[in-house]
């Protein structure tokens, strides 16, 4: 029948978990991510957000890009590409990293999994095969393979996440440290579990061959029945990551390779990711530009803001005084945080104004009519949500 569908070319791809997720998407709240049909939410965005903070939820990461990088040159290639020192990454460990253009502008961020001596997996939000190929130039002992389609990934986040995996029979899972990896036998294949995620809470990511995706789902959901498991989509994940202070492409940063206007992309220093840049490495892409940036100081700095009142400061422009004369920055993401009970935001502020007063000019609607409000902002160093369990090993049950 497929060839008779005149809209076949416009239909989105379906995740290997789709068969289970679709019936649970009671609201038909679909949008898309990397050409996959992707849920904004399933039942109620707020409900799902609270699953992440109170019980646990699953987030489909199949649309994320996954690349397998193998060979004697794999480490050298990755180390030339990303700003962090991958040589320090031990076997069965994961590291968060970013990579930049020669000009030191950020292309994307992602995670690198070390799976063997010469075997890595790189995950990231946007497809980057072209950049990987360029980054591989000059290296011969190397294969780069897009495994996005063959590997299914499911993120399990929230305080009962460990209890669910235990109930699923994953022995000693509570001993897994943050950013660690464990492998388990699952239906004759291997289930890889990493203690990683994008929620700022206790959480894991589960990786398995696509053919076993639904088996994994069923095992997980039957183990999770008494632990409040529920799928969540883009809306809830966006809330959780903002509370955790994590950046998103197309929100906090404009991917450098897609940026038209000069310097409307960002450097890692501007994004407060200076800690990801390791100048002890003799060479990596963007090194000299980033050295200059480090010495001169970034023009903008990404900060966490705690804003007075309870009106979210979406798209707000920032000023140094209440009268709103002279812009000093802008808000990149904002929300009322139910867990922190604070009006929070991530914002780009001209670095030299960081020490002074910061005010946000907020527009908010009341029964169709827009109202304006100028609210004082306070810069916060710590994430708005960082419960102890996120870092504890053994991981608690709830």
């Amino acid at each position, binding site marked *: 029948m497929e060839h008779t569908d005149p809209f076949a070319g416009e239909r989105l791809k379906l995740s290997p978990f789709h068969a289970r997720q679709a019936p649970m998407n009671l609201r038909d709240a679909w949008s898309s991510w990397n050409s996959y049909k992707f849920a904004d939410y399933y039942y*109620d965005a707020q409900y799902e957000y609270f699953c992440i*903070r109170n019980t646990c939820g699953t987030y489909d990461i199949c649309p994320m890009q996954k690349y397998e990088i193998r060979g004697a040159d794999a480490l050298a290639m990755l180390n030339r590409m990303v700003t962090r020192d991958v040589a320090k990454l031990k076997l069965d460990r994961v590291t968060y990293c970013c990579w930049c253009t020669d000009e030191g502008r950020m292309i994307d961020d992602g995670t690198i999994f070390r799976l063997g001596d010469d075997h890595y997996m790189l995950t990231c939000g946007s497809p980057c095969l072209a950049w990987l190929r360029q980054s591989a130039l000059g290296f011969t002992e190397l294969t780069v393979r897009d495994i996005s389609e063959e590997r299914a990934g499911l993120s399990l986040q929230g305080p009962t996440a460990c*209890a669910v995996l235990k109930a699923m029979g994953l022995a000693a899972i509570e001993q897994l440290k943050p950013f660690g990896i464990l492998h388990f036998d699952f239906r004759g294949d291997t289930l890889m579990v990493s203690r990683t995620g994008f929620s700022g809470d206790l959480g894991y990511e589960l990786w398995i061959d696509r053919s076993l995706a639904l088996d994994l789902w069923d095992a997980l959901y039957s183990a999770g029945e008494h*632990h409040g498991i529920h799928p969540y989509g883009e809306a809830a994940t966006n809330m959780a990551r903002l509370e955790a202070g994590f950046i998103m492409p197309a929100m906090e940063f404009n991917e450098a390779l897609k940026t038209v206007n000069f310097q409307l992309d960002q450097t890692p220093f501007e994004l407060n990711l200076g800690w990801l840049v390791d100048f002890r490495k003799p060479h990596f892409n963007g090194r000299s530009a980033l050295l200059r940036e480090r010495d001169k100081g970034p023009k903008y700095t990404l900060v966490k803001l705690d804003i007075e009142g*309870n009106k979210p400061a979406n798209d707000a422009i920032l000023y140094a005084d209440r009268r709103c004369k002279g812009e000093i920055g802008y808000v990149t993401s904002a929300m*009322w945080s139910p867990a922190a009970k604070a009006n929070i935001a991530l914002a780009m502020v001209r670095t030299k104004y960081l020490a002074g007063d910061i005010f946000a000019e907020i527009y*908010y609607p009341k029964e169709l009519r827009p109202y304006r409000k100028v609210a004082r902002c306070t810069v916060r160093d710590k994430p708005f949500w960082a419960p102890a369990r996120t870092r504890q090993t053994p991981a608690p049950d*709830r």
Partner: protein
Amino acid sequence: MKRYDAIVIGAGHNGLTNAAYLARAGLDVVVLEKNDYIGGAAVTRELHEGWHYSSCSYVCSMMRQSLHRDLDLSRHGLLLVPYLGTVAFGDDGNTLIDYPDEGAHYLELQRHSPHDADAMSRFQADLGRYAQLIRKTLMRTPPDPASFKPRDIREILFLAKEFWALGERELYEYMRFFTMSAADFLEDYFENDLIKAAMASPGIIGTALGVQSPGSAYILLHHVMGDVDGSVGAWGLARGGMGAISHAIANALREAGGEIRTCAGVERILVRNGTTVGVALENGDELHANIVVSNLDAKRTFTRLLQPEELPPRILERARNFKIRGSSGKVNIALSGLPRFKGLPDNRYINRGGQTFAGSLETMERAYDAWKRGTWSEDPFIESIIPSAWDPTVAPAGKHWMSNFVQYCPPELADGPWTPEKRDAFGQTVINKLERYSPGFKDLIVHMEVRTPHEIEAEIGLTQGNIFQGELTIDQLLFNRPFPGYGQYRMPLRNFYMCGSSTHPGGGVSAACGANAAREILRDLKKPNVVPDDDCYDE
């Protein structure tokens, strides 16, 4: 001997809040609690191993967000989780499901009455308008209408301005609202009895009024004016039970340098020359302080902790006649599994939220009639929720506990005082009703705690077990709370204040009474105010 700046009697959530703000303002403050646990009616207790009951209050909506934020209660361990999907059960076996999705909710109402489905939006807009005005008063000290102090006049002008903003017609409606019954109010909107019963149910929770009694419309409003994260009328659960609220406030208090002493029941308040100077504990110890604050209800404070000769007779009379009739029971039940209810689909979102066994307006009024006769109805009104379906910390995984709030339950029985046997018979009545709606329910019971007004008074000192520390009728609201002329937290003895739910804005876990009282105390001490404003003025 050590002299404190302030003694707060009672570690209810309001006493703790009051003390936290006094400590933050630099005062040396101690909270004295008679029980070996804190929290008063905002408490979590493990009465059966592995099960943690919110023994008294069970859901949260009135808690002032600005206080939560200012006291940093999230960092101190508090997470409020809104819950969805309440079902009202009718006498005839019919159900009314409160779906969170607007479209689904409309269809559900339409199934019962197309007229009422349409009327609901007007009802909600009207109620929202009334709620908005009341919300704005929660964190303000009521003005004394008989005073000519600039501050009182300013406050009266504020209220007048808010009132006028409603428009002329609404002004009349508003006045009516304070004095009418919930049933009459609903008559203006709805025709379907189950819809009316479901909507009326907040109007009888905790009150010694019936759905037909004048004044119950305000009780209804009192229960829907709260919010969770700005969603007005929504209710949430505190992760870890209601005690998590008290414990988070206690952590904030200790962080600010305050002290809490449990097992320190106060026998009497010490008064010299019309000034309070300290307290005497039940164990005979005396503690001295410049300021004494009572978190107990007004009746208890004035008739138990103070001597008649220390008080103006007018106040003593007011205290003795303070309306604080107990009317509620609570049955907490540990369950080996999730109960299923007749007539409900196996929908995971709605068969585990709240259950309102309202029946009909008639059944609710009958239950009230029984209370008046000094007994309980065989068909009581029950408002239930299964917190363990939401909160993984209050029962073992896969097991549950159900909170059942019962109207009505008399403070004294016509045939004599409460006995353990009568208490258990009351509990049995509740289980029998639940069994009718959920066949097999009894087989799930692992443990239960039955609380009549007698237990509630004996354990946490709420006189007659009145959950609000005094009836919420206009004669005891705003500047009339607890007594006319004493609506500003200062009591008729020097250096003596009240901070519990007997003061404005009344009962419920809001922390507003305690915070408002702290603001007044700091004002008298000429200290800078550290209590934040409410954050609802932009609504």
